[in-house]
């Protein structure tokens, strides 16, 4: 049981970490100014040249396949309550890795989302 919890913690940290790397890459790429197909393609093309995007994709893929592996021998109901924690990890990563400022109002919102996702999962 303990081993499974450690694996879940790793999956959450690696999966959310991968998304944070994607965020880092997109911050370096710059903002999309207009919703034109060509502008979107150009932005995505520039993003693919940022190393963080590949680190992020590798981490997200690792988390995805680890989750599949774990699901193959573990019950789903045990798996998903832990996913609510990814919002906490994400906010901390936003602050310390991306330099975002999370105000008290945003913290309250994130805490409520965590609670809501837990209820959805338990209520299934």
């Amino acid at each position, binding site marked *: 049981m303990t081993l499974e919890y450690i694996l879940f913690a790793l999956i959450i940290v690696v999966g959310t970490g991968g*998304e*944070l790397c*994607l*965020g880092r890459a*997109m*911050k*370096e*790429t*710059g*903002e*999309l100014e207009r*919703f034109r197909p060509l502008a*979107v393609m150009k*932005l*995505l093309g520039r*993003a693919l040249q940022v190393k963080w995007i590949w680190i992020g994709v590798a981490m997200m893929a690792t988390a995805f396949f680890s989750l599949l592996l774990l699901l193959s021998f573990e019950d789903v109901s045990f798996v998903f309550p832990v996913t609510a924690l*990814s*919002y906490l990890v*994400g*906010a901390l*990563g*936003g*602050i310390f890795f*991306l*330099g*975002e*400022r*999370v*105000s008290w*109002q*945003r913290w*309250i*919102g*994130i*805490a*409520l*989302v*965590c*609670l*809501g*996702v*837990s*209820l*959805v*999962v*338990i*209520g*299934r």
Partner: protein
Amino acid sequence: MHSRLHLKTYFLIAVMVIAGPIGNLLIAKAMKQTGPIVYWPPSELLHVFLRVFGGFTIWAGIACLIAFIVAFMLALSMADYSYVQPAAALGYVMIALLGVFVLGEKVSPLHWAGIAVICLGVSFVRGTHPRTTENPD
């Protein structure tokens, strides 16, 4: 008060919230239509592969998931991760609605309560500024 940044971010989060769950649903449906997966001999695996990728459903699902990830990347190009990630939890609302109206599932009261709490949480996040970092350029 809605700036251009707000409107662009809302639009992209809406694409994520709609396309993500629909994509997952379509892929799950395509995999169920496939029937049992036989791994041996390898020629059987090829048949399974052709059955999965020969249908329309799987490609529609893949297109939705591509739309999801592109919208996610574009959203992160203009808004905070700590804004987009909790806001995208509205996908749980979409999943419940798809469950009720498309799959004819019953959703428990606790599940609906969770969805109400998620919506409340997202409304708090929405009250904060989408971007708290400077543009690098």
